[in-house]
């Protein structure tokens, strides 16, 4: 099925879809980023840029950021690989449990793991000091990269697990039959075939790590990174120019990595992920290797449980880590203060954003995968920018772009001699913004979630034979009807995983919305930030527990509403 450009626009449903998508990308992704670039490359901004790139203290900041990215990229990919390898290729008990534990960090409210880590392993940690009597120094690179690795490795795990499963066992069998040892096969066959996956996991983790805001704020110590500086420049000093300049220093590597990951790594891939593997996976049988791997993975699983348990227990403790007298005071503060407002707002905004992001993502996937028109690669790229660009940058972009209404001035004047104008986009951020800034926050949630929906949708679509859709069109259905009745049902699992991911992501995001909250809109992650920064970990944990509860409940509802059990399971394992 090939549409020419002309044909595309003769199909009204498609044309409308395309216009909506393009408007979305232009207004809510490109415009904010461009506004921020404009500020960064203004005369003031350029002077700062030169300064930041020449003075030693600022270069240290840049160096720290990249160092953190590399360490977390390597460690997270290694850990993800270990989990995936054991899951697919090693015969050990409790695999289901390991899989679940690897997925748990997907729902981690910002700061939660870092704070829990501090309580368990900090200078006065319950485990480091209490059990081992060691005064561990976790502030700085070591603690930071450890916590980031734990909270981000899931991405690498899912990525590599998928690849390992898709790996054709025939290759390894052939090598074994030719007399190669297990280690030799692993080194010369398995690893090279996984290289693209490993590389792309590394790059994804690298970007997530350099963009992370929450963990450095808690565990940074004197190890300062760019994201922290962006944050302090806006919240602390309200110097949006300096913030924009720090932000573009962060933006360049993030974009570079994104382009490399998306357009180069994917091209060198030697695996046909869509093909069904033939033959049986050879399991590792050597007991030494098996049980060593088992012990290592179990240790990490226990660690994850410990961290989450201390969040839960801490929520009911008078002072987590110090005074464990049972109390409901933390929940009382959260619910009686402005916390309940934050809960309602955050949930409501996420509930609004999630279906929109899901549908938008699937529509874009449909346009990009199924339709042939000039610029579809650009649409794909533009949408993906929403996640390729660090959250703080989206946040600043929104703050700068939508802090004043965008007006078009008409060549007329009113009676008082004032020029007449039409407000194109009202003031969306800051004080007295439209709907108290709610619209901006919902938009940001959508921008950050659409890419995942697009990728899972595109993945699912490329595995469905277009002939089915063609048949529908031949029978007289227009493309809208075909999309609704044929395509959507077929990609339902992908749609569901997109939705779940979008919701969890919205509920737990901090960096993108931290500059957009107003007195009228309270966001839970922002409240968690406040409590954490002021050292009231009990309140922060109470928020986290409620947040985790909401996300889990929403997942259950989504399974119930959208997914059949099998479809849902496929969606979560394959997508997310």
């Amino acid at each position, binding site marked *: 099925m090939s549409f020419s450009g002309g044909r595309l626009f003769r199909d009204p449903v498609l044309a409308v879809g395309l216009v909506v998508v393009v408007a979305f990308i232009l207004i809510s992704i490109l415009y904010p980023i461009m506004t921020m670039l404009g500020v960064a490359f203004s005369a003031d901004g350029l002077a700062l840029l030169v300064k930041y790139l020449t003075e030693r*203290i*600022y270069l240290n*900041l840049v160096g720290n950021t990249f160092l953190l990215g590399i360490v977390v990229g390597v460690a997270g990919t290694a850990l993800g690989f270990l989990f995936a390898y054991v899951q697919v290729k090693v015969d050990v008990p409790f695999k289901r449990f390991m899989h679940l534990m690897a997925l748990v960090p997907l729902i981690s409210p910002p700061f939660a793991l870092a704070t829990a880590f*501090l309580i368990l392993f*900090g*200078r*006065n940690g319950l485990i480091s*000091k209490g059990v081992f009597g060691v005064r561990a*120094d976790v*502030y700085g690179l070591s603690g930071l990269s450890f916590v980031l690795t734990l909270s981000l490795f899931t991405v690498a795990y899912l990525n590599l697990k998928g690849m390992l499963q898709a790996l054709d066992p025939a290759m390894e069998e052939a090598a074994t039959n030719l007399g190669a040892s297990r280690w030799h096969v692993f080194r010369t066959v398995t690893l090279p075939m996984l290289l693209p996956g490993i590389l792309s996991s590394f790059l994804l983790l690298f970007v997530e790590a350099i963009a992370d805001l929450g963990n450095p704020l808690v565990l940074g110590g*004197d*190890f*300062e990174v760019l994201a922290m500086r962006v944050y*302090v420049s806006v*919240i*602390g*000093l*309200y*110097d*949006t120019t300096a913030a924009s300049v720090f932000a573009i220093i962060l933006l360049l590597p993030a974009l570079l990595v994104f382009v490399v990951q998306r357009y180069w790594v994917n091209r060198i891939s030697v695996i046909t992920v869509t093909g069904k593997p033939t033959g049986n996976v050879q399991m590792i049988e050597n007991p030494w290797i098996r049980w060593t791997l088992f012990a290592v993975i179990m240790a990490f699983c226990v660690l994850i449980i410990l961290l989450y348990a201390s969040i839960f227990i801490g929520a009911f403790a*008078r*002072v987590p*880590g*110090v*005074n464990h007298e049972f109390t409901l005071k933390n929940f009382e*503060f959260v619910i009686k*203060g*402005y916390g309940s407002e934050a809960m309602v*707002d955050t949930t*409501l905004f996420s*509930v*609004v954003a999630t*279906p*929109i992001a899901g*549908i938008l993502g699937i529509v874009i996937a449909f346009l990009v995968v199924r339709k042939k028109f000039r610029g579809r690669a650009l649409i794909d790229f533009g949408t993906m920018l929403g996640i390729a660009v660090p959250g703080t940058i989206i946040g600043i972009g929104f703050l700068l772009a939508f802090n004043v209404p965008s007006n078009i001035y008409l060549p007329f004047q009113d009676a008082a001699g004032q020029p007449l104008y039409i407000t194109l986009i009202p003031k969306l951020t*800051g*004080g*007295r913004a439209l*709907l*108290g800034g*709610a619209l901006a926050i*919902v938009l940001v949630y959508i921008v950050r979630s659409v890419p995942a929906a697009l990728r899972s949708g595109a993945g699912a679509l490329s595995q469905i034979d277009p002939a089915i859709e063609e048949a529908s069109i031949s029978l007289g259905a227009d493309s809208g009807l075909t999309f*609704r*009745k044929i395509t*959507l*049902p077929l990609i*339902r699992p992908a749609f569901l995983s997109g939705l779940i991911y979008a919701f969890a992501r919205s509920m737990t995001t901090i960096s993108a919305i931290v500059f957009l*909250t*107003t*007195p*009228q809109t309270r966001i839970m992650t922002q409240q968690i930030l*406040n*409590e954490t*920064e*002021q*050292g*009231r*970990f009990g309140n922060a944990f109470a928020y986290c527990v409620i947040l985790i509860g909401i996300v889990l409940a929403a997942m259950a509802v989504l399974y119930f*509403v*959208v997914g059949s059990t099998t479809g849902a399971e496929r969606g979560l394992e394959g997508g997310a």
Partner: protein
Amino acid sequence: MKLTRTITILLFLSVFGLLAVRAQEDTLTVLCTPQEDWCVAITQAFQEKTGIQTSYVRLSSGEALARIRASASDPEFSIWWGGPADAYIAAAEEGLLESYESPNAEGFEPRFIGENNSWYGIYMGATGFCSNVQMLEELGVDAPTSWADLLNPKLKGMVAMAHPATSGTAFTAFWTVITLEADKLEHPDGDMEGEGTGEGYTEDGVPTQAAIDNAFAYFSELNNNILQYTRSGLASGPMAGRGEIAVSIIFSHDCIKLQVEGFEGILTTTFPEEGTGYEIGGVGVITGAHEPEAARMFLDFALSVEGQSTAQQVNAFQIPTNPGTPVSEMSVDFSQLQLVDYNFVAAGSLRTELAERFDKEVAPQPAE
């Protein structure tokens, strides 16, 4: 088709959900600088009393000042409540605070009433050291009783304070050291009553550049012992409580609050013997406020006994400025303290400049 229906319903829900978000019926927006729980208590008390829908954002005082400055043409907030007066004086000098004569300020000491009634004092609090007893013992150090004690090499990485650019708490500590350095230059013999050398203070009573440079030298040295500069002034207190550091430089009332709220027997409050600084917490109506009437009502409330009594609901042990407000017995007795002669006006005028210099010269430097 079930799925289509589900999606349609979801979409409808979305749109209605968004529209249902409150239609900006708020009538007072407070910029709040003290601890979050006090912000909640006073805004809720005010809301109950007046029926005015009140919301707040909590920002540390330097942040608050920056935010008011940035939104001066279309203020986001109508009133600023709490945080050291230095920042209020800086704001008033830039014309960011409106002059308002409150009937409730009657009987207030003159130092609690800002020039042109641009701000009023609502409480007082003294800078102190908040130390973890057990940590000090392990390190073999006594609880610090002078600024010089903090430079002890045994305390490397064991001290924390906030950044003076964002935090009023930290700026008060910073100005205290400036004042002490100025005193040293002015009276090298230590006799404060005697004739001054003119080295420490200018004729207007403002600390000289030399005194300021000496203070910077002190903080550069202290930087080697500092683990982290927090954004918010009181954040380093709980760090000391959890034993991540040994000494936190914060307001003494915040340390006492921590002791009452779970860190009893863990933290101890001490003061520098050579002299400590103090804050006068301020309140002021923001120029061009969109809710001026409600803001003035809030200011009146903040000066009243009723408003100031909200402090005790949340263990805020600052000394209230209204002579009629009962003082908690947990509060620090100011008459027992060696207080420096804190020049609020000079501190307010130099605040922005000093905070920026601190950011450039001291804070971004990694500790050696």
